[in-house]
């Protein structure tokens, strides 16, 4: 690519995308300008990834057209898009650990010389790209063992190798810490100064405010608005994304009882140290912290999914030994795991079978698990949680929101003493989110102690009686509802 990258515009008009009866993008007009950063915001399922996939040539629109500088741009695939100067950096980085950094950067287009891979040339180019971004790395070393953040930087270097005119960043900071995110933002700054047009997709609204020149908001596949970054603040962005004020913020959760149902003391393992807290009946404890801080590891140990090396757990005043999930279930501690598709549900099995799985051996210790048993279970849970869809079909066919409800139903067949929810509303649409918050509140009213691990600060602050902040595997704070302001929580989370 020898053309100058200044003054170029990628323009998409009327982009529509459907999956069967479902329209995920409704006639979107979107543009990227050279030397400028567009922040693309929207809730999960709003269509951000779909739009960027279409621009990067990964998916084809059903309607609409794109141009670059007025010339038709119709990429047939990601490689074609790259040749036209459009690169995308994905959320989930897939590198091949056994291959070197340089080989990963040139995957699919290794330079050859007379039938052999031109390794030296490849390494030289790779090194140049990495240095350009300020990354100190030997391109010959294997990728295995490098942190996610470093892999992300390699990915960025890979994308800019061909000097693209437009680069799309799809949630680059989702799995990064504070410092690493700063580096990414600096690299985007470098790109901008060179005249590259950047799209930055993120849920972290402060980053959007920091880096973007323009903010473009999608909701339910429609464009909500487009503003110069200086003209819109955080509250404004949230309102645009969600379509309403987060009024729930001020609804007080029901008052917990005095009885202490669970005590955790000095819980430690390789990933976290000395976690202690008490839970009362009907209390909702939020667990906040940055990605990678150790929140999931802590609750998994409590739920028996991972072993812990020190500390005690007591339920209703009595010490319990938790060495397996089965032990935890016996003690009344249940966990709804983070990833419902790979950890929570067997997608091939029906919803009814998924719901009954933990309970068959406990509710039918001597007899046969009959269709009647499954049907009764099914009817009860469908009613209790308002699950829509046929529960006798494989659960993988249900919508994200209903899948999450099935997963919750699985753990509410029996009333737990302590229910742990790890990212309960991830990948769930707005309507189902509300329903899940209702369910959590109802559980608290019934006397269940709920632990909610969530990366959405608003959600945690809205739901919890108290907030435990974890950073670097350590318990930094246990804040009351009044003390838990977004600023304070963030402060503790990055300490």
């Amino acid at each position, binding site marked *: 690519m020898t053309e100058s990258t200044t003054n170029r515009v990628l323009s998409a008009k009327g982009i529509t995308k459907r999956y*069967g009866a479902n329209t995920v993008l409704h006639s979107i007009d979107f543009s990227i300008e050279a030397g400028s950063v567009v922040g693309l915001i929207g809730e999960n399922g709003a*269509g951000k990834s779909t739009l960027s996939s279409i621009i990067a040539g990964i998916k084809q629109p059903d309607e609409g057209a794109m141009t670059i500088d007025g010339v038709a741009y119709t990429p047939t695939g990601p490689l074609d898009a790259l040749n036209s100067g459009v690169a995308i950096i994905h959320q989930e980085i897939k590198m091949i650990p056994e291959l070197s950094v340089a080989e990963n950067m040139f995957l699919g287009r290794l330079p050859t010389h007379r039938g052999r891979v031109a390794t030296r040339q490849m390494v030289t180019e790779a090194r140049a790209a990495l240095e350009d971004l300020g990354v100190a790395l030997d391109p010959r070393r294997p990728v295995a063992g490098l942190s996610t953040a470093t892999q992300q930087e390699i990915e960025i270097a890979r994308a800019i190798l061909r000097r693209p005119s437009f680069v799309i960043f799809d949630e680059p900071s989702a799995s990064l810490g504070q410092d690493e995110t700063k580096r990414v933002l600096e690299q985007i700054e470098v790109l901008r100064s060179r005249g590259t047009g950047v799209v930055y997709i993120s849920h972290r609204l402060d980053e959007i405010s920091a880096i973007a020149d323009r903010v473009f908001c999608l909701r339910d596949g429609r464009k909500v608005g487009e503003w110069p970054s200086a003209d819109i603040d955080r509250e404004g962005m949230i309102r645009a994304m969600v379509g309403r004020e987060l009024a729930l913020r001020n609804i007080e959760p029901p008052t917990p009882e005095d009885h202490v149902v669970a005590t955790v003391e000095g819980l430690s393992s390789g990933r976290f140290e000395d976690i202690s807290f008490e839970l009362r009946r009907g209390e909702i404890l939020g667990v906040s912290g940055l990605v990678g801080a150790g929140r999931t590891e802590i609750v998994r140990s409590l739920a028996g999914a991972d072993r812990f090396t020190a500390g005690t757990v007591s339920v209703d005043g009595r010490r319990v030994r938790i060495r397996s999930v089965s032990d*935890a279930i016996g003690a009344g501690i249940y966990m709804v795991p983070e990833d419902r598709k790979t950890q929570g549900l067997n997608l091939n099995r029906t919803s009814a079978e998924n719901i009954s*799985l933990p309970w*068959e*051996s406990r509710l039918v210790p001597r007899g*046969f698990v009959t269709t009647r048993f499954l049907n009764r279970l099914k009817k009860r849970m469908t009613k209790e949680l308002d699950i829509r869809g*046929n529960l006798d079909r494989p659960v993988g066919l249900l919508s994200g929101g209903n899948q999450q409800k099935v997963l919750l139903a699985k753990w509410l067949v029996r009333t737990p003493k302590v229910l742990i929810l790890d990212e309960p509303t991830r990948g769930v649409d707005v309507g189902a989110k509300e329903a899940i918050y209702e369910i959590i509140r109802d559980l608290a009213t019934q006397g269940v102690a709920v632990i909610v691990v969530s990366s959405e600060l608003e959600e945690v602050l809205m739901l919890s009686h108290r907030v435990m902040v974890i950073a670097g595997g350590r318990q930094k704070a246990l804040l009351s509802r009044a003390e838990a302001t977004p600023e304070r929580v963030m402060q503790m989370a990055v300490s």
Partner: protein
Amino acid sequence: MATPVKADSPANTGTMATTSAIRVAQVKSKLKILSGPLIGLILLIVVLSFLSPVFLTPNNLVNILVQVSYIGIMAAGATLVIILGGIDLSVAAVLGFSFMVVAVTYQNLGWPFWLSILVGLAVGAGIGLVNGILIAYGNIQPFIATLATMFAATGLSLYLTNGTPILGLPDWFQGLSQIRWLGISLQVYLMIAVFVIAGLWLRFRPAGRSLYAIGSNEEVARLSGIRVKAMQLRVYALAGFLAAVAGLVVGARLNAAQPSAGNSSDLLAVIAAVVIGGASLAGGVGSMWGTFVGLLIIGVLNNGLTLLNVSPHLQPVVIGAVIILAVLSDGRLFSMFRRGRGTDAH
């Protein structure tokens, strides 16, 4: 498909391949009884009865059942292992070795035969347990662990007697293989009993049902409170035990302990029966009924080809072709072709 999928946002659920595979699994489960393999079996029987006048005679049909009975007993155990998501390559070798132990303790150590039988069964279960431990706790892949025990058992079998068979087993034992009720041998009833009991356990008991969960996604099963490792030990031990039972059946029929009993073609027949019957080697799919039909297909094929004077060397070729047909008709392969068209995750 009877009902079209409503706007349940399948876009949110992942790849097109997953959706197709799920729907095929749905259709398959609806047709549980009237399955592809059963239709195949019926067709085979019809065709063979035309091709050979001897085929459809009661004598011949009973013969088929008798011939496959020991394979069937092993196949029941293998089905459980495969649904669990594993594989057991050692079953045939355990068949031979466990009965060799029976014969050696009886003949060379002078133990009462009933005790020898118990020891043989214990050895079978023991080897199965070793498999289970290697796989569950040693984190060794099932293929490798059971391959190792297979070699070990085969070797030990030959070592115990220096390769010579052991004769002189009690008459009543040989007599067991002659007992007939309603014209059908005892071993056939034994096989059927194994299938029925295993089938009921698999379908209705929580422990049996958990095999499907473990085979579908071991982590999900574990996080659901299923004691996965314990289940693995149980199932592999059971497979070993059933292999030892099959060893008794073979031993009674031959009236000798042959070091060559339980060879690789037996192993292949066992796995073929399970796969033709619709179980997936990836785990989470399968049934006793399916394996039974698969077993019959193999028995009928072998029998029919022999009656038609087809060279015995060609018989495995035919079985191989049938296996491929069986897997192709398992929707999973079709959905793999569709996977190439890209994903529709948002």
